[in-house]
């Protein structure tokens, strides 16, 4: 399968702090790809660089065949419509109802009729597991879990090929976390999505992820499937996955 995201020799510097130095990774089409690392390792920064919110000092990032460096305005607009991003706090527009939040890109970018937009919005609300009656609520009236689901619905509205999730399950209760994980796997299977997610939750990692990258010490210390994780030489991996050197990985 082909790579939909390729990162080569990425270097990111914040003032006097080096975040990434010579970071490489490949994300294949159709997989759920996890980015893990201790806090402050630059996971969210990496994600922000992939969605053009931030520019690295050097190195190249290729997303869906576009090189993000010096990308033309028209290409960037096309690219933006092919991905969806779910931010940590949901990032819904607080002055719009949930239904209007989801419908916004459809209203702005397409010439669909009102009735058709309503139907698409209803479908997205239903597929992320919210009730139709929730559509009239405003973001401030939603609970944490509903906000995440609503954010997911609005990032899915244009049927993106690629979905970026920044800690999708943080701040949710364990039951909601499992539901959300199952939802992401279901969506990937049904909507032919590729998913890139930053996660902290070990159970989420086991439940959803096909392959993962671990950022430690400014580089990727491990990239690949969960099975071979015990080969990685990193303090973070050992403490996060509690690898016992004699028995190997305990799942």
């Amino acid at each position, binding site marked *: 399968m082909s790579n939909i995201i390729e990162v080569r020799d990425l270097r990111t510097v914040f003032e006097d702090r080096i975040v990434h130095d010579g970071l490489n990774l490949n994300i294949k089409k159709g997989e759920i790809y996890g980015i893990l690392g201790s806090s402050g390792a630059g996971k969210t920064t990496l994600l922000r660089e992939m969605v053009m919110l931030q520019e690295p000092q050097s190195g190249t990032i290729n997303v869906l065949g576009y090189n993000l460096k010096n990308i033309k305005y028209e290409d960037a607009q*096309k690219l933006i419509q092919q991905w969806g991003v779910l931010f940590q706090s949901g990032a819904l527009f*607080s*002055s719009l109802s949930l239904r209007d939040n989801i419908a916004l890109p*459809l209203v702005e970018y*397409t*010439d*669909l*009729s009102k009735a*058709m937009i309503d*139907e*698409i919005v*209803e*479908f*997205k609300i*239903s*597929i992320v597991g919210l009730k*139709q*009656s929730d*559509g*009239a609520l*405003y*973001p*401030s009236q939603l609970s944490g879990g509903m906000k995440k689901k609503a954010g997911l619905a609005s990032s899915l509205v*244009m*049927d993106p090929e690629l979905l970026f999730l920044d800690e999708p399950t943080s701040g949710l209760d364990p039951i909601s976390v499992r539901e959300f994980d199952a939802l992401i796997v279901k969506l990937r299977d*049904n*909507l*032919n999505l590729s998913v890139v997610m930053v996660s902290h939750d070990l159970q989420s990692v086991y439940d959803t992820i096909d392959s993962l990258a671990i950022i430690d010490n400014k580089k990727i210390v491990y990239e690949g499937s969960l099975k071979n994780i015990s080969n990685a030489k990193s303090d973070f991996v050992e403490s996060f996955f509690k690898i016992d050197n004699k028995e190997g990985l305990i799942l």
Partner: protein
Amino acid sequence: MHNSSLDIIYADNKLSLIFKGELTLYDISKFQKKTDSIDFAKYKTAVLDFTNATHLDSAVAIFVANLEKKFASNEIETETVCDKRDILNMMALVKSQKSRYSKKAEPQKIGVLEKFGRVIYYKYSLFVFFMAFIGELFANWLHYISSLKHIRYKEIFFEINESGVKALSIVSITNFLIGIVVSYQSAYQLKIYGANVFIVDMLGISILRELAPLITAIVIAGRSASAYTAQIGTMKITQELDAMKTMGFNPYKFLVLPRIFALMIVVPILIFVADIMGIIGGMIIASIDLGISSTLFLDRFGDVIAAKHFFVGIAKGPFFGFLIASIAIHRGLSVEDNTQSLGANTTKSVVEAIFAVIVCDAFFSIILTKLGI
């Protein structure tokens, strides 16, 4: 970008819809126009052919599902020809989701009477909230001044610095310019009558009594009212106020009263500075335009301007300060959980603060004149 098309072939009583290429939501309105022109009564069977389609997104799947429903309601048999798993999966997913939710309930109609009632109730609840604010303010005020220990000096001095010291330059410049403007315009009129020296009476009374307090209050309303509303409003949105309450810090004691006290202390001081700057501005124009030297100006100033004008101006300060701070904070606390309401309340805060200052000034004008002060 991508190529897609819908060809419709009409044959006797059989209808063939041939979808080609990558079908995405950008194509739907194009397809919609084509299918709208079909005369459904004429046909018995319909074939939906996806053999040459490469991709189908959920929006198009919804469109196709609607089309099938339309065929069914016109008693046309539908046959789907497709050999791609992805496309079939997507259509199955849409159908299964659609069956899970029934048609959404239409929003119920609201009558004129109910609408009117809702508006009145909303206004009433705002009024109740305002009264509660006033009540809480005075209850806390009493507790605040009941002992010197309760007063939060640090916060008060911080706010004095923020709203007073940092506003010194803008208040000075504004009032200096007002002094120049008033003096220049009056000089032109006074020259006609040769009543040059009366510029002192005119400037002294108008600036000390009315202009300096009013201009200062308006500058502070624009500067601090907006800042207070935005600060407290944002704290409410980010739940900082809730956090304070749960930690036992009463927001009225930590946020509200220090700001009110600060403005009540600092506005009279600013008015004093404004008086000086306004008179200096006027004096400069008087010496340039009317040939009244600064010595002559100040001599006459001492003779004709009674001290009461100065004290009336200064005495307005605490009232203006109280109005500006309490309106701004009330607006800050009225902010709801969305960004739009933050903007609306900040606008209202400044407008209402300036309006209240002018109304208060009018009351002072009438009452003090009646009292002969």
